[in-house]
């Protein structure tokens, strides 16, 4: 039981890493990037090529890919998103969905349907474990992923609240017109924000690639997990995403205990429950739910 609880927390860490980029883009640009999962899988292929074919050590490969994905993100904003945003809220959705379809199938053409793994690049890390008192073993990798999730959120929150560029991003997200009146180059700011969102996806790609076998069409499943974590947690601070990811992971682990197919089903049900609660409470968030409970 204790082991299952700990594993659920660690799984939540993985979902957090998945969801950071999606949540960041959604809160800053009000765009849900439907290609988020596809970009993560693309990054994973990048890591695989760098690591397995060119022998680049994984940490360095992650850094290289972050730069690559940042540039790709800037390009995405400049060519697709900025143009699509002018046509209303719907076009960015349609455009990113189209990009996801293109990327998924291009990766299938380029890399085939085989499942891949980054695990051989890191020696025994993918199966090594810590032993806790009570004869509980927990995977080292999952612990590191959770740590990365927490550090990444702390870093982004610090960046948004304490740095000048962070302030510029926040100003642009709150009121684009006023921000540009105040002399902020909003196009450039949004391009940087998109770049950051895609760069954090490389962390998710590393986690995805090391945890399990993956293939070119796995992006949509990762997108759904990330999205569910974001909706359950609520928008506002990235720490909420962490909470949402934990709830998602707990629901899934509970489901897996009830029925072999229950893992995904209970995750989706947790999402629906979150939507219901939001329906009841207007502005939805965990804290509003708690404060509502205390007021009545």
């Amino acid at each position, binding site marked *: 039981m204790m082991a299952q609880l700990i594993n659920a927390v660690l799984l939540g860490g993985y979902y957090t890493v998945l969801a950071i980029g999606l949540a960041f883009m*959604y809160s800053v640009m009000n*765009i*849900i990037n*439907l290609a988020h999962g596809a970009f993560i899988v693309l990054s994973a292929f990048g890591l695989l090529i760098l690591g397995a074919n060119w022998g680049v050590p994984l940490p360095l490969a992650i850094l290289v890919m972050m730069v690559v994905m940042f540039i790709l993100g800037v390009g995405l904003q400049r060519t*697709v998103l900025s*143009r*699509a945003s002018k*046509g209303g*809220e*719907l*076009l960015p*959705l*349609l*455009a990113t*969905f*189209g*990009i*996801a*379809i*293109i990327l998924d*199938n*291009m990766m*299938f*053409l380029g890399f085939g349907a085989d499942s891949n793994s980054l695990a051989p690049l890191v020696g025994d890390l993918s199966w090594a474990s810590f032993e806790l008192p009570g004869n509980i073993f927990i995977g080292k990798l999952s612990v590191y992923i959770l740590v990365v999730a927490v550090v990444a959120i702390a870093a982004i929150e610090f960046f948004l609240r304490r740095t000048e560029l962070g302030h510029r991003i926040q100003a642009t997200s709150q009121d684009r017109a006023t921000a540009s009146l105040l002399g902020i180059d909003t196009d450039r700011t949004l391009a940087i924000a998109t770049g950051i969102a895609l760069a954090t996806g490389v962390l998710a790609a590393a986690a995805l690639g090391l945890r399990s076998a993956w293939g070119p069409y796995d992006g*949509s499943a990762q*997108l*759904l997990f990330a*999205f*569910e974590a974001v*909706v359950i947690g609520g928008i506002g601070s990235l720490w909420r995403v962490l909470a949402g990811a934990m709830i998602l992971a707990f629901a899934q682990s509970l489901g897996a205990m009830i029925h072999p*197919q229950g893992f*995904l*089903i209970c995750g*989706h*049900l947790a*999402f*629906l429950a979150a*939507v*219901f609660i*939001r*329906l009841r409470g207007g502005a939805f968030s965990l804290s509003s739910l708690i404060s509502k409970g205390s007021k009545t």
Partner: protein
Amino acid sequence: MITQPKLTVARGGKTANITIGLMIFAAAILAATPWLFGVGGSGRAVALLVYILLAVMWNALAGFAGLVSIGQTLFFGVAAYATIRLADAGVNPYFAILIATGIGAVLGWVTSFFMLSLKDGEFAIGMWVLSSLAHLCVNLDPLIQGETGTSLISLNSYDIELRSKLTLWLALAITIAIFVILVLLLRSRMGAAITAIRDDELGARSIGVNVVRTKRVVFVLAATGTAAAGALWLASNTNFQPRAFFGVQWTAYMLFMVLVGGLGRIEGAIIGAVLFFIIETYFAAYGVWYLVGLGTVAVFFALMLPKGLWGWIGPRLPGEAIPTGYLVEKSKNEAE
């Protein structure tokens, strides 16, 4: 003295009459397909009708109600599954298709109560979550045997020629019925509200349009039409593999048809569906490249021609092809 120009308000006109004539002609050709092109032709005709249904419904949802859904496969797949289940319980398969369409409508009505509280992107993927939830639950049914799937066996009691004719005519009847309902809806008082929401949701709300109720009506209609399409697709292909019905490729097709044809115009959706049908006929054999091509064209249209082909053709025609609005004309010198 001030002369007041006399205003005449008209609906339709020459373009509309020609369009109606063309559509009746097309319907007649489709109805006669079994004699013109045999059993294979009937199957293709059903495919065309299913594409038209999907495109018109997705367009009503995205173009008019402003609701982009990635998970309309929820209704598509659930209706096919319901048809299988009903037929297994001994219901006549054609009657089962109609009931399954009704089930789709009810499912749309129920889900609308919480899904419509989500906005834009959240609604889009929220529907996807619902669709994959339905997919997982359908897989649990022992009758379906997981991804292996099953067939609409009771259709075999019909001779193959009779079966293909019945399926085609049912598909034609349902498509026409849903199309007429949509056009009547758009021409009604609520249609004015729907068009107002399409053009400016905030503005519509400010002049007293009940946005949520209006969206719900469109959402339920779209659910109904998409469910009908799913049940008909099953009747035409007889095999039910959950992945083939809940798969995300259907969303890609809908997106392609509507974006290329023209978001927010019924004429556009129909043109998009016909175009997709032609492309699919000639290029589907290219498999993955075909999907890449569809995605690329859809993104190109979203960025470069967001109003689609009809956005280019429509304004060049005198009047509306499918009249849902009013034409106001000034006739001079009446008062003098």
